[in-house]
């Protein structure tokens, strides 16, 4: 009896301990402990509640003004096949503030239902699922578009003993993703995305065919590895139940054979590319219009049968008439490129990602451009 009693006590203790540990681990995300996760969630909830209270006091906010976009932001199926052109922007004030986007839409007189943010892979708190940002974007009535960049060397070796040293990770890094080496991170992100629950667009590994830009390019990986990684990630998200995530495949169409990187109709919801006019500031560039940059590639992009997105749209000021550039581009968009269903203004004051000097993509201070954009959009953009 005595022995049986002891065994019962031990078993009960083990069961309770296992339940407690399972509960604690379920509270946290894989990369955050339960406490930080709960506190982060508390912060986000505080913000959401405060926003609602503010709407009561100050009257309805932007979300109410964007009510016409509700079908797309609340229903993933509608966002998969939109019947309007959704405008959007990325602004250099992100992640600190979204005010830049709001100012821009006031100036150009057209609402921006898409707001783009950039999120890198890694261990740091700001490299986790950007819950606060996407919740804030959703609170403003917009749809989050997250450009998700697999910077594999940002994972700390000490926390990931199974990974090669940071310097060796980029070589065939996409194959490692496809093998599941980064599933801890991918699954945590997917679980958070599922918890967010509202439709969101994720642009993973953009410009994967450009050998000079990002470590996930063809200098380190084959296109088969890229496609395998993409499919693996989408599968992980589907397994996690994150069906609210729509996948935006975004090659750099200036390089040949970009269409060979297409992961497949079942794995892609949108196809996208950037349309950025650098003008004559770089040796490889000159003043190119949208027809020159995008026109020749459009038929192939549209042929995938998916809605097309111009995910980074803008022109520098030097070397031509910027107002005319925007006017012409926007005027011909609905008629010449009817498959384009999203256009995201790229508004960064000091961009250094491509060139060695800082370049300014913003046009908000240039009233000529603002007027041109305003006029062009006035003819066709939803109010």
């Amino acid at each position, binding site marked *: 009896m005595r022995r049986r009693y002891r065994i019962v006590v031990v078993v009960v203790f083990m069961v309770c301990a296992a339940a407690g540990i399972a509960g604690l681990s379920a509270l946290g995300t894989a990369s955050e402990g339960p406490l930080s996760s709960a*506190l982060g969630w508390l*912060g986000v909830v*505080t913000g959401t509640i*405060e*926003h609602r209270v503010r709407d009561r006091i100050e009257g309805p906010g932007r979300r109410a003004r964007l009510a016409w976009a509700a079908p797309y932001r609340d229903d993933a199926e509608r966002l998969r096949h939109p019947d309007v052109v959704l405008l959007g922007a990325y602004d250099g004030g992100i992640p600190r*503030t979204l005010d830049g986007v709001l100012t821009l839409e006031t100036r150009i007189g057209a609402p921006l239902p898409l707001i783009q943010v950039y999120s890198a892979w890694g261990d740091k708190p700001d490299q986790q699922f950007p819950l*606060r940002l996407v919740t*804030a974007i959703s*609170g*403003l009535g917009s749809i989050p578009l997250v450009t998700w960049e697999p910077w594999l060397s940002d994972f700390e070796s000490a926390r990931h003993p199974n990974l090669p040293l940071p310097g060796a990770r980029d070589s065939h890094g996409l194959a490692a993703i496809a093998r599941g080496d980064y599933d801890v991170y991918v699954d945590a992100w997917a679980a958070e995305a599922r918890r967010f629950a509202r439709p969101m667009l994720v642009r993973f590994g953009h410009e994967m065919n450009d050998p000079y830009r990002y470590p996930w390019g063809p200098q380190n990986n084959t296109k088969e590895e890229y496609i395998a990684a993409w499919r693996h990630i989408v599968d992980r998200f589907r397994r996690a139940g994150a069906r609210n995530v729509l996948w935006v495949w975004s090659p750099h169409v200036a390089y040949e054979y970009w269409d060979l990187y297409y992961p497949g109709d079942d794995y892609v919801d949108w196809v996208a590319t950037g349309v950025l006019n650098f003008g004559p500031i770089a040796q490889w560039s000159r003043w190119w219009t949208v027809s020159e940059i995008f026109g020749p590639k459009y038929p192939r992009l549209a042929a995938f049968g998916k809605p097309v997105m111009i995910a980074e749209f803008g022109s520098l000021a030097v070397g031509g008439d910027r107002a005319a550039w925007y006017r012409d581009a926007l005027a011909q968009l609905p008629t010449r490129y009817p498959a384009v269903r999203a256009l995201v203004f790229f508004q960064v004051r000091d961009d250094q990602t491509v060139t060695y000097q800082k370049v300014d993509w913003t046009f908000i201070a240039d009233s000529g451009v603002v007027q041109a954009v305003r006029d062009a959009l006035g003819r066709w953009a939803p109010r």
Partner: protein
Amino acid sequence: MRVRDRVIIAALAGVGAAAVLRLADWWFRPAHVAQPALFVLLSLAFWYAVSRIVLGWVNYAAIASPAPRTAPPGLRVAIFTTSTPGEPLAMFERTLAACRCVRYPHTTYLLDDTRDPRFRERAERYGAVWLELLDVPGAKAGKINRALALTDEELILVLDPDHIPFPEFFDPVLGHFDDERVGFVQVSQAYYNQRRSFTAAGAAEQTYAFYGPGQMGLYGHGACVAIGANCTFRRAALASIGGHGIGLAEDLVTAIRLHAAGWRSVYVPVVVSRGLVPEDLGSFYRQQLKWARGVYEVAFTELPRLATKLAWRQRLSYLAIGTYYLFGVTTPFFLLVPYLYLWTDVQPAAMSFAEFLSAAAPVAVVGGGMYLLAQRWLCDPRSERGLHWRGLALKLACWPVFLAGTVLAVLHAEIPYIPTAKQAVRGRFLRLAWPQLVMIVVFGATVARVVYRRAHATSEGSLELSAEAVWGMVAFATLPVIAAVGALYAAWQARRPRADAPWDAVDVRTIGGAEA
């Protein structure tokens, strides 16, 4: 200390050390530095606070108490108690009567400069030797030194006149002088008036941990200190350092000099006398100012001079004691941080509030656990156990006093030695509570401004993204406001002190037995 307890403390301290390392690793990330100068200041303040917690663990790890020794017969023992003008006669009546009841044969001396014949009359009525010591510089300690020259007992108990010794006072004490190297034996300090007001309860609570596990840990490190109220000295020891130390922290100064001269000290954690804590907030503030100013002499004068003669554990202990009141410098900085952010958007450190909480929580949990665990070594656990929230509230309220003490010490400014009031004095509410009231007004104005700005003047695009930071800071500013309520209540109570004296209800014959 039993082996089991030692293992538990060591394990907790080990977990705590890991938690502190983890916190440090997180705290000192380069990305956290927002304003370099302010970050340095905040780090100093924060890590001072953490270091106090760690020093507490270091101390608790050494907790020890001496094996009991019976007092051998035939020792020649004196009790010195001092009276100064203005001290209430009725209190001496109790103390002198109680001294006569102390069982071990001894001589009681009243060191008197009141020029009041009634004191001589009372001394003689209770069989004490009356020594009139007029115009002796050095206040209480000066009179003790003068009396040492006039007497010849080998052991001297220096007893504050508010302390009522129990008849068995010397029984657990004198045996330890068998060891020729022991210079003084200190017993616990306890009170008989801590239930008479909020201030008294808080002031007493602040001392419980020190007279229990605190002094026992110091004893384990070979550095338990003398407390002027009820310490028994060996005459030869005092003679070796040129007499009792003089100054606001005369007891600490005496202790460090004796340790430096090679004498050992013994801490006996028993309650064999009870005295008074300040009952009104004004008297408490004056006592704390005196201590804060005085204790810095250990850090500024004694420790640099004597450090080479102390063992390293004694050095660490005295350094910990000597820097205790820096709390008064760091607290205002912590108080300022949320207001700086809420009014000017300036943040010393770019830390997420949620992340800070999760990084600091393990240290706080271990610290709290250790505090509660150490309560088993309280001298009178039955009456002393608890969360000691009154003591904490009073300590937080004391930061202006500690700051003043620090500034006076740095400026080497003297403040007069005045014995702490024995009976509550009436205080004006506004005069005592204005620092708390100012803080509450500033807090109210800040919250009003935050609410207004968040409702009407914050752009919609920043609202949700800044919610965590702003409301986290408001929460951070709320904690000291809650703590201020305790001090406000104490100040309110000080308007009407109790009319009866604390010793009215004391019966000298039962005070020890009733508590035992």
